[in-house]
């Protein structure tokens, strides 16, 4: 029975095969001879034509086109080779793509017939320690007709930053693309994987003119596949190419057309007049020259501390800290400079949090930072250090570790003393992939205390009101990120450069609960990244949040305060793409 094609494993959990250079060559060669596939008809007007392209600091390419699928190429005047190719056109823009048989490289060329300018993307496999990750180098140049060279060039830009699209390819593939950064992008595969989670990839953004822009992404840390497309901003259409191995190690090399819808445009944070692109400085060689194909890529799984359940048990026993005066390590440490102050609202209170289908937690609060808890009416009370922050009148965020819990749980609780409602994000360890990687579950319930009559049926509830929103969070000087809530289950975060460009971006699973109007309780999991559970109670009425991080690493289990002053950067209208349909 056909259904939503949710993957067995999300992209960040797939153990992609480390393909050898020989394996890649064997798959690539026949495809290089044949050229890319395309559902849409290929452009035919190259047949019988020739093309000279000169680039700045890059190759000189002379093409002879025998038809709409065969070409010969002379690189830098040497050795003509024959290859399959394909080309698509959109108004005055042409995109042609080919590989070079007998090698693991090729070119995708974008030509503006009106200006005569050309952008050449050289692509190759086996250029990085993970051979399957497609490498790219972009060269700017022009079509040479023998006259003087034009001075203008296509150029990197931030002009696409902040834009979002829904694309439907000619193959039927549907994707949401978000460009909240000038150096990264975020994509949600709606039709291929059900759109549950979004993922991030390093990207290039090139201005061809004010109407056409070139976008690329390389799915680094995932399949390694490369996509490049030209976006017609007025017609909301794409022509593009995709090259790479999928999770089944099948090689795809295809051209495509897409019809799009603009989902939104959020704010940019560069100074007015700054339209520069390529904001993340690339690596250089020992002589200070840019490395061909070099780019800075966020590869968090490499630096993540990975612990076994036994190691976690030992570390938690010896080094568990909650709200130390100055947190020095952990996934959320350092994110509290702008936090709301802890307060003593709970001090002296005794109450019960009764979760539906969950534990019953009794509390006796001794002071502003000490409480005792008891689970399910047990006879033993356990003391714990906690902190509480009053995010709105009568609405508290507080958290504590549950000493002795087999999975080293922590409870982070949004407690509404006006409504008698509570939601708990229950963090825990000993998760399937890495024992120190946090998991989380949401518990909904009521608050019972003298003087409070909780509701019988009403509860806090999950919401899509945050879906598509972008919020900037300034935690400390120099430490500002932006959240993008790209799916009902995804939190993506973007790091800014000092001049306000969106830079590196990553994402993880998240959850969103509405607490009051304008107040949302959310978490994100830094899965395959840092292992942190980050929780925030965001109050859009005061544009501030209060939060608590839960993290376990080699230095211990840590619960620490986070908090930020926030800005609303805008919203993408994407809710219609996430409706449950039968």
């Amino acid at each position, binding site marked *: 029975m056909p259904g939503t094609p949710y993957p067995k494993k999300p992209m960040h959990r797939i153990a992609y095969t480390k393909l050898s250079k020989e394996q890649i060559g064997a798959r690539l060669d026949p495809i290089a001879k044949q050229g890319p596939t395309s559902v849409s008809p290929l452009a035919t007007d190259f047949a019988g034509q020739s093309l000279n392209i000169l680039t700045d600091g890059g190759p000189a390419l002379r093409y002879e086109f025998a038809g709409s699928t065969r070409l010969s190429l002379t690189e830098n005047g040497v050795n003509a080779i024959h290859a399959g190719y394909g080309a698509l056109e959109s108004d005055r823009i042409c995109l042609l793509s080919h590989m070079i048989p007998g090698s693991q490289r090729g070119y995708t060329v974008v030509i503006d017939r009106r200006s005569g300018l050309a952008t050449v993307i050289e692509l190759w496999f086996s250029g990085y320690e993970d051979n399957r990750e497609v490498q790219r180098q972009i060269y700017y140049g022009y079509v040479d007709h023998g006259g003087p060279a034009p001075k203008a060039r296509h150029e990197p830009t931030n002009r696409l930053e902040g834009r979002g699209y829904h694309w439907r390819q000619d193959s039927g593939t549907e994707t949401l693309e978000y460009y909240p950064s000038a150096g990264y992008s975020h994509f949600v595969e709606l039709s291929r994987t059900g759109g549950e989670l979004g993922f991030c990839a390093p990207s290039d953004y090139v201005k061809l003119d004010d109407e056409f822009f070139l976008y690329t992404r390389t799915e680094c840390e995932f399949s390694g596949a490369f996509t490049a497309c030209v976006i017609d901003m007025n017609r909301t259409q794409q022509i593009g190419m995709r090259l790479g191995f999928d999770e089944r190690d099948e090689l795809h090399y295809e051209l495509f057309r897409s019809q799009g819808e603009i989902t939104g445009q959020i704010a940019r944070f560069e100074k007015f007049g700054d339209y520069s692109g390529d904001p993340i400085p690339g690596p250089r060689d020992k002589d200070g020259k840019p490395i061909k194909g070099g780019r*800075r890529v966020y590869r968090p799984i490499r630096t993540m501390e990975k612990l076994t359940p036994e190691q976690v048990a030992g570390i938690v026993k010896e080094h568990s800290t909650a709200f130390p005066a100055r*947190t020095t390590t952990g996934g959320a440490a*350092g994110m509290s400079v702008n936090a709301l102050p802890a307060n003593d609202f709970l001090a002296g209170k005794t109450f019960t949090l009764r979760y539906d289908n969950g534990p019953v937690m009794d509390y006796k609060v001794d002071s502003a930072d000490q409480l005792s808890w008891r689970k399910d009416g047990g006879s033993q009370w356990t003391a714990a250090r906690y902190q509480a922050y009053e995010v709105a009148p009568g609405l508290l965020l507080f958290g504590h570790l549950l000493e002795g819990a087999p999975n080293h749980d922590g409870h982070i609780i949004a407690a509404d003393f006006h409504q008698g409602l509570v939601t708990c994000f229950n963090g825990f360890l000993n998760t399937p992939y890495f024992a120190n990687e946090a998991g989380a579950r949401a518990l909904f319930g009521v608050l019972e205390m003298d003087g409070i009559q909780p509701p019988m049926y009403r509860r806090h509830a999950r919401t899509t009101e945050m879906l598509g929103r972008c919020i900037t969070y300034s935690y400390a000087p120099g430490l500002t990120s932006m959240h993008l809530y790209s799916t009902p289950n995804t939190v993506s975060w973007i790091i800014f450069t000092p001049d306000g460009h969106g830079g590196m971006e990553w994402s993880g699973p998240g959850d969103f609960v509405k607490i009051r109007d304008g107040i949302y309780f959310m978490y994100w999991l830094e899965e395959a990244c840092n292992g942190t559970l980050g929780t925030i109670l965001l109050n859009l009425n005061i544009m501030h949040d209060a939060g608590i991080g839960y993290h376990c690493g080699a230095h211990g289990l840590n619960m620490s305060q986070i908090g930020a002053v926030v800005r609303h950067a805008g919203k993408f209208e994407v809710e219609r793409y996430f409706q449950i349909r039968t």
Partner: protein
Amino acid sequence: MAQDDTSTRRAFLKGGALLAAPIAAAAGPAALADDPLHARLQRLQDEAAIRELHRSWLQQLNAGGRETLPGHAVRRIIADHAGAPERLEIAADGRSAVGYFDHLAEVETPLPQQCTLAQMAHAQGTGTVCRSERRVLTLDYTKTGGTWRIVKADLTAPV
């Protein structure tokens, strides 16, 4: 990866050695010492040479030559026009001098890599916080062979 954070006194002196300003007209100091006019001319020449040396030194520092100011995470130093006038004190024997300059220093502090966001900022090559602070730049000079050199540089908070 380039080691751009390593500063040593040796590197400083090496950098300083490149920044040396010869005095335009070198007259025999012993012969002219008793002549007030020549002494004044000598002083003016010394002051001009030191100012030129200071300008070159700042230029090198602001172009990224951090070894010129060891021990300080300074990205740029620019004149503080609201500060006190510069002060040059040349020793009576004309062989050493101290200069005091009010400046605005752009101080760069690395973000501690305690959280994911800071680690990402470092990964993209931008993991520092930069802020402008008023500072007094104190430079010690010595003259050897008719050429002024900087032998010590320090940045302190204004009193």
